């Protein structure tokens, strides 16, 4: 079986725009959640907090590149530029045809969608609609833009499965490399912060708004006082390579994709299913040829919704012993939606290399229904050889990735 390794990482996140800065925030518990003053005029929106990426503006990219992007595409392009640079790969290899791009987001740019289609939909006018407008809004805008920038000629995979977009992108890319369809891939996920995302969760009673005056205290995954998720944004890119290819060029290897599992509940669009979640974890374990006892740390999806956290706790409790540390880094980043699978994989790689496990910050009193699993209450020193990263999405999509150092 061909093996798949990670040789490059690029990150834009609410807690840092390099893996090193993010690690520092994770260890110190520095939250990226803040009050969003731009939402002040939206009278009916209850959540007023979000987690934005700092020090990035679309305008910093050359016009030729950014003309087909909204913010989400720009975030994806920038984290990919950083990952490619980090991996030190030859640009000719990226355009050789043996490298693909596998990159997802919930959808295209929401900001651009509202800007252009508001005219089209409500006024019947073309407004500012241009030849480049659709390219900023289309669901595979991230993958398409990355492919253009790096002249990628292998296959394009663009999972747009909301909050599993990033993790499925990594998983499907790894499978394509394993089966010899690619020798390498630019893989990851992105999403941009927009009030429409906050409103989407608000109307479903899934967004946090009890902590609008104390943004750092929310979201509160697994906590008895949690009141929903906080929307965030970001982008994470991994450069994946077939192991022998990476070794032959003397690449630095951060980790190996050992297993991947994805399934769907087929029961309800939004209600989480602990059976489906557990099924995805079991598929990943089976794919890796591992047992639950082989996992040293679980990065939970745990967004701080009432039902989602309980379902995930139930699934983990049923499968793993109560000695495996479990935590949700969303307590610091908010829910970065399509980006979370990629961003959290990078967080875990950095923590594992540092030999540290972080707690779920803001978890003070564990919800009784989230007990029975091990929630570390402080940063712990621990050898992590293998970790699991879980992500779940609307539509009943479940995804679990197992990565080893």
């Amino acid at each position: 079986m061909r093996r798949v390794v990670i040789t490059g990482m690029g990150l834009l996140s609410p807690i840092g725009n390099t893996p090193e800065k993010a690690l520092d925030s994770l260890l110190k518990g520095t939250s990226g959640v803040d009050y969003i003053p731009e939402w002040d005029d939206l009278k009916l929106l209850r959540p007023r907090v979000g987690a934005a990426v700092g020090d990035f503006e679309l305008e910093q990219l050359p016009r030729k590149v950014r003309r087909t992007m909204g913010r989400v595409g720009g975030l994806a392009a920038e984290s990919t530029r950083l990952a490619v640079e980090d991996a030190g790969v030859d640009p000719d290899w990226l355009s050789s045809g043996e490298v693909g791009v596998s990159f997802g987001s919930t959808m295209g740019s929401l900001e651009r969608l509202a800007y252009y289609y508001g005219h089209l939909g409500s006024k019947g006018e073309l407004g500012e609609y241009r030849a480049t407008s659709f390219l900023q809004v289309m669901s595979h805008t991230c993958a398409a833009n990355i492919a253009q920038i790096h002249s990628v000629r292998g296959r394009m995979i663009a999972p747009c499965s909301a909050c599993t977009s990033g993790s499925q992108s990594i998983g499907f890319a790894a499978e394509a490399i394993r089966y010899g369809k690619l020798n390498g891939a630019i893989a990851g996920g992105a999403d941009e912060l927009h009030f429409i995302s906050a409103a989407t969760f608000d109307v479903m009673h899934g967004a946090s708004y009890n902590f609008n005056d104390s943004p750092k205290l929310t979201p509160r995954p697994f906590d008895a006082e949690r009141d929903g998720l906080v929307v965030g944004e970001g982008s994470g890119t991994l450069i994946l390579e077939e192991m022998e290819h990476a070794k032959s060029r003397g690449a630095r290897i951060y980790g190996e994709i050992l297993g991947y599992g994805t399934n769907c509940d087929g029961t309800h669009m939004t209600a989480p299913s602990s059976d489906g979640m557990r099924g995805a974890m079991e598929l990943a374990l089976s794919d890796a040829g591992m047992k639950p006892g082989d996992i040293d740390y679980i990065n939970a999806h745990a967004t701080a919704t009432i039902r989602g956290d309980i379902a995930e706790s139930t699934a983990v409790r049923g499968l793993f012993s109560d000695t495996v540390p479990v935590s949700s880094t969303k307590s610091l980043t908010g829910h970065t939606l399509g980006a979370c699978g990629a961003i959290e994989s990078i967080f875990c790689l950095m923590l594992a290399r540092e030999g540290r496990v972080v707690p779920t910050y803001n978890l003070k009193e564990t919800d009784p229904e989230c007990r029975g699993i091990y929630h570390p209450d402080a940063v712990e020193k621990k050898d992590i050889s293998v970790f699991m990263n879980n992500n779940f999405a609307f539509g009943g999509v479940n995804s679990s990735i197992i990565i080893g150092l």
Partner: protein
Amino acid sequence: MNREQLIDRINDLLVNEFEVDEDSIRPEADLYRDMKLDSLDGIDLITILEKEMGIRVDPQKLRGIRSLAQLYDFVIGLAESAGRLE
């Protein structure tokens, strides 16, 4: 709007919307080779002018326009026939 103002507007769009290097704004300049525009830019430029001047352009007639001078003549011709030029 007169002829000179229209030419100024086209130049202004090229520099500010399409970030074309001001030094390359010469009538004989090739839109694609010298100004680094491509077909997407060409369509967007025409779309902006269409909206500003209340005209519609037949895409077939855009083919063959290579130089900035040809673009000026094409847009001026359209504006004149639509009665938009003084």
